[in-house]
C-alpha cells in the first residue's frame, strides 16, 4: 500500500495533467466540421457518390450516439443497432404505404404481404399511413424500448460486462423476431421498393443533394444536442457515474435515472439515423439490426475516440468511407477489412482513447513545451 502512495506522490502535476474543457473552441471545431459537411455537395456532382457519402454521415451519427452512452455514460451498448433498425423500419413502413400502386398488392396492401397471403393490413401498420406519426414513432419507439431495457438493467444495478452481454442478447432476440414475423416485416428480405420521401410537396430524392442536406441538418442538430448534454451538469454527473458509479450514489443522485436517460437519448439519435438511412438506401433490412453492424459501431467509436463525440463521428465516417471507396474491387475490400481488423487491435492496445484521445495528449504536450 505504502509503495502505491510513494509512487503517486512522485507524480508531478503539469500541463499534461490538465484538461482544457474550453467550450468555446470546441464549439468552433464542431462548427467547422459541420460546415465542411455542408459544402461537400458543391464540389461533388456525382449523385452516386453523394448518396454513398450520406450513408457515411449516418454511420457517423450512430457512432456519435454510442459515444454519448459509452464514452460519457460508461454503458457499453453492444446492441446499438436495435434502435437504428427500429427507426429504419418505421420509416420503411411509412414509405411502403406510399408506393405507387404498381408495387403494391390489392387494395393498397404491401406486395410482400400479398405473397404471404395476408389479407388485411396488420394493426401495427395502421399508424404509418400518417408520415408525421411515422416520424414520431421512428424516434419514440427506440426511446421507449431503450427506457424499458435501461430500467430493466440499471434498476438492478447491472454494470460492465453484463450490460454488454445483455444488450447483445437483446439485439439477437429482436433480430430473430423481425426475421421470423415475415408477414409483418418482410422477413429476411426486409421492406423493399419504397416510395421517395415527400414533405409538403418537396421530394427528397435519395440520389440528390436534397436528401444529403436533410441528413447533414439532422447530423448537425444531434451532434450539438449531444455536445450540450455533455457540457451540462447532467453530463458531468454522467461522467462521474462512468468513473465511480457507487460514489455518485452517496451524493444523493439516483444513478439509474442518469443511465436510463443517456441510454434513451442515444437510442433516439440512433432511431433518427435509422430513418434517414432508409430514406437514402430505399429499403430496410434485418441486417440493419445485425450483430455485425452493431459491433462495427463500437469499433468505429473506439477508433475515433469513445470520449469524443466528434472523434467517434469522424472515426466512423473515415473507416466506412475507406471501406466504401474500396468496395469497387472485391480483393481490395477483403484486404482492407483484414488491415482494418489489425489497425483496430492496435488502437485498442496502444490508443485506448482512440485517435481523438491521441490528439488531445499531443496538444497537451505541446502546451507543456511552450
Amino acid at each position, binding site marked *: 500500500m505504502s509503495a502505491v502512495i510513494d509512487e503517486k506522490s512522485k507524480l508531478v502535476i503539469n500541463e499534461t495533467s490538465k484538461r482544457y474543457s474550453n467550450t468555446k473552441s470546441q464549439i468552433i471545431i464542431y462548427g467547422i466540421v459541420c460546415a465542411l459537411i455542408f459544402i461537400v455537395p458543391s464540389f461533388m456532382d456525382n449523385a452516386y457518390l453523394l448518396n454513398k457519402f450520406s450513408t457515411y454521415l449516418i454511420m457517423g451519427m450512430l457512432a456519435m450516439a454510442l459515444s454519448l452512452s459509452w464514452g460519457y455514460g460508461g454503458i457499453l451498448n453492444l446492441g446499438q443497432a436495435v434502435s437504428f433498425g427500429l427507426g429504419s423500419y418505421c420509416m420503411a413502413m411509412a414509405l411502403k404505404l406510399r408506393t405507387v400502386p404498381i408495387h403494391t398488392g390489392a387494395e393498397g396492401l404491401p406486395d410482400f404481404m400479398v405473397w404471404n397471403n395476408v389479407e388485411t393490413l396488420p394493426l401495427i401498420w395502421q399508424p404509418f399511413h400518417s408520415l408525421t406519426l411515422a416520424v414520431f414513432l421512428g424516434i419514440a419507439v427506440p426511446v421507449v424500448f431503450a427506457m424499458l431495457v435501461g430500467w430493466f438493467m440499471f434498476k438492478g444495478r447491472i454494470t460492465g460486462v453484463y450490460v454488454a452481454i445483455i444488450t447483445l442478447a437483446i439485439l439477437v432476440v429482436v433480430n*430473430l423476431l423481425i426475421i421470423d414475423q415475415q408477414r409483418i416485416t418482410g422477413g429476411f428480405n426486409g421492406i423493399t421498393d419504397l416510395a421517395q420521401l415527400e414533405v409538403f410537396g418537396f421530394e427528397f430524392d435519395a440520389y440528390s443533394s436534397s436528401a444529403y442536406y436533410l441528413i447533414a441538418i439532422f447530423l448537425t442538430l444531434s451532434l450539438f444536442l449531444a455536445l450540450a448534454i455533455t457540457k451540462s451538469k447532467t453530463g458531468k454527473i454522467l461522467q462521474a457515474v462512468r468513473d465511480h458509479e457507487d460514489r455518485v450514489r452517496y451524493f444523493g443522485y439516483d444513478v439509474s435515472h442518469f443511465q436510463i436517460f443517456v441510454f434513451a437519448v442515444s437510442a433516439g439519435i440512433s432511431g433518427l439515423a435509422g430513418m434517414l438511412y432508409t430514406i437514402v438506401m430505399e429499403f430496410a433490412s434485418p441486417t440493419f439490426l445485425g450483430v455485425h453492424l452493431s459491433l462495427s459501431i463500437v469499433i468505429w467509436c473506439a477508433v475515433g475516440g469513445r470520449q469524443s463525440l466528434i472523434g467517434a463521428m469522424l472515426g466512423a465516417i473515415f473507416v466506412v468511407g475507406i471501406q466504401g471507396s474500396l468496395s469497387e474491387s472485391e480483393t481490395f475490400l477483403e484486404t482492407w477489412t483484414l488491415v482494418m481488423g489489425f489497425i483496430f*487491435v492496435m488502437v485498442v492496445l496502444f490508443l485506448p482513447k482512440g485517435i481523438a484521445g491521441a490528439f488531445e495528449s499531443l496538444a497537451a504536450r505541446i502546451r507543456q513545451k511552450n
Partner: protein
Amino acid sequence: MDPITIISQLVTGLSIASILLLVALGLAIIYGATGVINLAHGEFVMLGAYSAWALQTFFNMSLFESLIFIFIIVALLGWAIERTVIRHLYARPLDTILATWGIGVIAQQAIRLTAGGELRYVEMPKQLADSVLIFGVEISSFRIFVLIFAATLFGLTWYLMYRTTFGIKLRAITQNPEVASSFGINSNRVFGLTFAYGAGLAGLAGALISPLKSVSPEMGTTYVVDAFLIVVLGGVESLMGTVLSAIILGELSSILSFYSNDTIAKALVLLAIVILIRFRPQGLFSSKVRS
C-alpha cells in the same frame, strides 16, 4: 406429446446441449480464469472446422485422424494471440471485447482470402454415417459420438482443473493473483497455457460440428453469443454450472421448437437467459461474481 416424441425431443435436446458444451467449455475456462471476454472464440471454432476441411481435402485425413492436429493448430494460434495481444489487456476486461472482436475479423478475413468465402463441407467418418435406434427413436451415430466426446472432454478438463498442479496454480491465480505470484507461480505462463487449451477445445468443437453443418468464414458468430450466455448462466469458475446450463439450454431449445419454430424458440431461450442474468448475475450454479 406421446412418449416417443418426448424421448425424441429430449435426445435432440441432449445432442444440441453436447455441441453447446463443446463450444462453451473452452470459453468457460478462459473467461473464468482470466476474465477475458473472448469474442474471437467463435473464430477458434471456425478455424477448427476449416482445419478439419483442409486436412481432409489436402492430406486425405479422416476426421478422427485429424482431431489431435486440429487441437494443436488452434491451441498454438490461441497461445500466440494471448502472448501478443490479450496479455496487455488483463487490467481492462471491457477492452478485451473490442480487441478479440478485431481478432475475429482478422481471422474471418484471412480465411476468406485463403480458403474462399463459399461454403465447405467435411465428410462424416464412414464408421459413424449410419444411425441407431434408442427407445424406438432413430439417432445418428455421429451425434452420439459427439455427445460421448463432449462428456469425455469435460471429464478431462475437470480433472485438469481440480486434480493437477496446473489447475491448482490456475485457480490460485484467479482467486488472488498477488498472493499466487508471491508463492512463485508464474501467472503469465499459466494464463498463456490456459488460453491455448481453451482455444484448442474450441478448435475440436469446430471440427466435430463441421460434418453436421456447413463450414463458412462467418459460422463462428452464431456460436459465440450462445456460448457466452451459457458460461454466464452457469456461473464463473463453475465447470459443473457450464454443463448444467448447456443441458438446460439444449433441452429448452428442443422443447420450445416443438411448440413453435426454431427461430422463436431461440429468441425465447435468449430472453429467458437475459432475465436470469438480470436477477442472478453470479449465475445459477455459483456464488461468485466477476466484477
